[in-house]
């Protein structure tokens, strides 16, 4: 599974960064970015789904390949 962020939608809420700091961080321009390229374990995928749920702007996208 891969995770991408639609930066036009992103409102910099920070929910992904604070709830799942191993997966997301703020970059130098204060925008959320993904730290882990490929998610392989079930725990990682569960966390990715949680992060999509918690994103207030719907900016997080999950891709199965």
């Amino acid at each position, binding site marked *: 599974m891969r995770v991408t962020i639609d930066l036009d939608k992103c409102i910099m*809420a*920070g929910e992904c*960064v604070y*709830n799942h700091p191993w997966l997301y961080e703020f970059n130098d321009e*204060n925008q959320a970015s993904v730290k882990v390229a490929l998610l392989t374990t079930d725990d990682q995928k569960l966390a990715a789904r949680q992060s999509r749920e918690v994103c207030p702007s719907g900016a997080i996208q999950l891709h199965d390949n």
Partner: protein
Amino acid sequence: MGALANEIDPREFDSPGYQKDPFPLYKRLRDHHPLFRDRFHNRWLISRYDDVNAAFQDNESFDRALYKVDGPYEFGSSHVFGPNILEYGNSDRHRWLRNIIAGQFVGQGLVSFIPFIEKIAGELLEDCMGDGEVELVSRFSNQFPIRVISNILGLPRADEERFVGWYQALIAGLGFGGEHLARGIAARNEMWKYLEPIIEERLRNPGEDLLSKIAVAELDGQRMSMDEVKGFIALLLAAGGDTTDKAIANMWYHMLYTRPDQFEDVKKDPSLWENVFAEMMRYDAVVHVQSRYTTREVVMHNRVIPERSLVILLLGSGNRDERVFANPDTFDIHRTDMHMGRENRSARYKDKLPGHLGFGVGQHFCMGYAMARQEAVIACTRMMEVMKNPRPKFATHEGISSPNIDSGGFRSPQELWIEFDG
């Protein structure tokens, strides 16, 4: 005079004058003692916007809980709530607990509750709007958020009145102590006894409700203990109810008494309730104080705060910091120097404006921030629809106060009478 005039006697923090109007003392702290060592209460106080904001974001130096050498934590709410998320400091367990329910309160899940929030607001208003006048606190704001949260948990609607009663007793216990505290704990025990079979039932047959989600959530194959689930529910009822309840009363208070001129703008454009919410959270938020413990020595304003010190983050003062906001002591819903829209946990905004500190910032940012704004704005908007020409019943009001502001007492008017045309 001179320097001595600006000395602060820490007993001022216990005075009735400070509980009523803390802002002059906040300003003296910001201007003359941006890091104040309060030897009398054995704590440190931070009062400027930038310092409070930075401390909220510095998890390496400040923890929500004080961890003792021998393991257990120490924090002041478990005697009322039982073991709960607030006790777990900056730990992974805290983050896990938060993740279980964050999606419901913050993200897309919130949208599904809106019809529900509307419905409960409508029911309550129908019940209390018949007489051309209403006491807002007891008849509406005190009941509204608690009914919303108990429904989100999927608790039986027939028992809602009992929850309102338990909730009010719990809150009075936290705010006032003494015999109120004894009644609060009795209410909690009654509530827990009532909840136990419901929790067991949800464990056997989990549904889509929040209580089921909390009961069956797992971390490394482990579920929460029964005590933890009950503590979590007690906290949600109290934290999810009390703060929003008081926010609604505060918004109306400021429109009726502080800025009746700007209330005219809101009557013409009810979407401005969003701005009223933001400015209320800056000007005189429900909660003024958060506490932290230092996990290491912290250097600030050329002084050293030792490790394991209690540090009070005076967000109520940071919100009035003239270094950040122009005319900070003026309530202004048209402010252009603050982010007036929905709050961000990161304190970062695309409009690059500073936000208010009323929900905190960072790891321990208020979980219910989006829910609170949503509930408050919906409630106020609905009220404007059913009340024609709303106005204060009494020409003067004793104002907003707090039972004990710097130990977390919530600020709100005790009563708020509104008169309106049929």
